[in-house]
């Protein structure tokens, strides 16, 4: 994973195997980015992935399972709360950045990866993108702010479809979620042109406009976080995680 500043555009490029899973390493990367990147001089931020499989497969379930299995049980709640608080802080900060944020998605955009894309003001989806919230397959709900953020973009019916079926939906069937569906491999170039156009506008006006059109969702985020922490500590979740981790069928992104 890396970020660079090509004045006036900041660009985060995700690229870790197997598919940009969000665990401690990704979290630290984003925390460092928020501390070190010249946000005050930037006019837009692009988040994309150069991993061939997709944007991100979501939370690092292998690490979560190992933590719940090998670390003392009494430390689980504190450690999970700490991780969730930190990831929420990162995603909330990205969500509320005073500059436009563009996510460029392709392939797998599942779970926590979908939640990361949802902090963006604009999603440019390559035609291969499939969005999915598979969390209920594990006995969970999304925990990185995905439900409240998705509620801003699509109908409740679509959210129920995502959550209650756990199915993946291709980008072109989600016109209220994605700004443009573009050919495979073209997303980043298109995002850069868009970011350059955005950079022509007055920074203060952009900031005011963004604040006006992104409603406050603090309360819902807090509710979701509390529900997630309660659920993730259920032994049934640990069992489901065990099945996921031990599955060697090469089909981790399909329902079972």
């Amino acid at each position, binding site marked *: 994973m890396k970020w660079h500043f090509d004045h006036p555009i900041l660009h985060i490029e995700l690229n870790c195997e197997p598919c940009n899973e969000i665990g401690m390493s990704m979290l630290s990367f984003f925390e460092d980015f928020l501390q070190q990147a010249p946000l005050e001089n930037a006019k837009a931020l692009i988040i994309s992935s150069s991993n061939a499989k997709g944007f991100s497969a979501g939370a690092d379930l292998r690490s979560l399972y190992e933590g719940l299995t090998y670390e003392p049980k009494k430390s689980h709640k504190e450690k999970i709360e700490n991780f969730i608080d930190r990831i929420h802080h990162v995603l909330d900060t990205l969500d509320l950045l005073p500059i436009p944020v563009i996510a460029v998605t392709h392939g*797998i955009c599942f779970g926590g990866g979908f939640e990361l894309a949802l902090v963006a003001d604009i999603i440019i989806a390559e*035609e291969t993108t499939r969005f999915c919230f598979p969390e209920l397959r594990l006995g969970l709900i999304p925990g990185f702010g995905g439900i409240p953020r998705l509620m801003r973009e699509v109908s409740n019916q679509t959210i129920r479809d995502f959550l209650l079926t756990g199915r*993946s939906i291709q980008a072109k069937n989600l016109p209220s979620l994605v700004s443009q569906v573009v050919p495979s491999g073209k997303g980043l170039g298109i995002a850069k042109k868009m970011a350059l156009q955005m950079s022509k506008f007055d920074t203060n006006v952009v900031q005011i406009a963004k604040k006006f059109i992104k409603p406050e969702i603090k309360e819902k985020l807090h509710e979701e976080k509390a529900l997630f922490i309660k659920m993730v500590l259920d032994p049934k979740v640990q069992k489901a995680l065990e099945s996921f981790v031990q599955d060697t069928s*090469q*089909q981790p992104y399909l*329902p079972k």
Partner: protein
Amino acid sequence: MNQNVFLTIQKLASEKFSISLDLIEPSKDIFTTLQINSVDVLSMLTDLENHFSIEIPDYELQDVRSFEDLTNVISDRL
């Protein structure tokens, strides 16, 4: 089995995964024949949805093993 649907799957899969048409037969296992993982399956699913102008929820693929199974899932939605 709907022969037209099978022939379309055969052509799409052959081109997408660079495999000879002859190797794709109705009774053969999709995953081992094409040597694909779930990322490839989802990519093929998107292509099939677009080609047939339908939605195929991925949970309907849970019991799909052969090309004939896949042909039947798609045919049910046409």
